[in-house]
């Protein structure tokens, strides 16, 4: 069965390591914060200028001057630092963030990602997404494997305008965990009860599947 949003976040959380500085995009990526293993600590970077983002505030803590990149009111953890936008993106662009998790419309076998613009629809902007994908060595894209109409989002070539070129190596979809290398998708894990055939069938780009593909456990 396809993974739930929570399971997607849980699977992504397995890529965390103790001491990681992590930037989580809006949507499912944000949920990853709920599944950090207990014995582990990670610090969340918010690109509007906060390293060490904490949970939402209580009514008493609520402060208009304390928001995250999604413009939600947040708190800062003990040991946080706050800085300006140029400094924040120096961190991001300079490759100092250990892991970035973000959603996408499409990825392809070259590691290209399209996540910000659908021609014909109103374009709201890329925000910090282009900086994040260009700056991080370690990015996990999380999205559904195919659209509601069944169109694959793992393509031979992205059809939408790109957010970044050649920068994606890891994708967690509701059906599978896939790596991208040497111009191909490599099927590494499948969602519980989902067959390799189904995954390969819903993958438009070339996909290599080993004889045995381990099933994710939750």
């Amino acid at each position: 069965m396809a993974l739930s949003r929570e399971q997607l976040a849980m699977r992504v959380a397995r890529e965390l390591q103790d001491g990681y500085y992590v930037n989580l995009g809006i949507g499912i990526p944000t949920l990853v914060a709920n599944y950090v293993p207990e014995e582990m600590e990670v610090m969340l970077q918010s690109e509007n200028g906060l390293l060490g983002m904490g949970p939402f505030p209580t009514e008493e803590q609520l402060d208009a001057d304390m928001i995250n990149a999604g413009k939600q009111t947040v708190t800062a953890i003990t040991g946080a630092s706050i800085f300006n936008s140029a400094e924040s993106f120096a961190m991001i662009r300079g490759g100092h963030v250990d892991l970035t998790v973000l959603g996408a419309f499409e990825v392809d076998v070259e590691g290209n990602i399209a996540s910000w613009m659908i021609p014909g629809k109103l374009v709201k902007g890329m925000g910090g997404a282009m900086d994040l994908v260009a700056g991080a060595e370690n990015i996990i894209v999380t999205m559904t494997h195919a659209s509601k109409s069944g169109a694959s989002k793992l393509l031979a070539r992205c059809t939408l305008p790109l957010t970044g070129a050649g920068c994606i190596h890891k994708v967690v979809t509701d059906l599978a965990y896939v790596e991208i290398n040497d111009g191909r998708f490599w099927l590494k894990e499948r969602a519980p009860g989902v067959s390799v055939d189904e995954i390969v069938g819903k993958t438009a780009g070339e996909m290599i599947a080993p004889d045995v593909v381990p099933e994710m456990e939750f």
Partner: protein
Amino acid sequence: MSGFDKVVNTYDEALDGIRDGMTVIAGGFGLCGIPEGCIAQVRKMGIRELTVVSNNCGVDDFGLGLLLEDKQIKKMISSYVGENALFEEQLLNGELEVELTPQGTLAEKMRAGGAGIPAFYTATGYGTPVGEGKEVREFNGRKYILEESIVGDFALVKGWKADRYGNVIYRHTAQNFNPMAATAGRITVVEVEQVVEPGELEPAHIQTPGIYVDRLIQGRFEKRIEQRTITE
């Protein structure tokens, strides 16, 4: 201390000299840390045909969105817009132009503008629509695009506290783009919640040294929250 006293008492003085067609850089991220009083003054003065450089364009009835109501903005340079219906409407009408710029590139363009760096290379946007028409260059085996800096005729900045010399500190994440904006204006106007005397701010804590600040005004701020998220 007359020569370094940047304090003005009215927004009329603060924005004296602003004209139709100018480029205005505004600090703020969403509705956080925006120069509310300066925006209101630009609206009141009816300045038009503005190019506004700011990460976002406010919402329909607050922030830079207010300048859309009277169609005062000709062009926005932003990373994320369209939190408001007027923006969409004017964009689709062709009344408004938008130059979408990645958030980090936008911050660096302002910093570079203030720092006398006319252009820099970044990997951000390479291979995307942002990179179209821009020079591509390889350094150490990786491709980068050339981005030029931004300076504004006016920079509108929201600080927390400033001394009369224009030394500014910001509060929490209301800092965001404000320090970069402050460096990149030919005339930089800072509005703060509290003006203090020189010496009250620790020299090492000052985030915008007074050398960047031309005019300082104590304002009042609504500080509207865009997304009120609470832990029960």
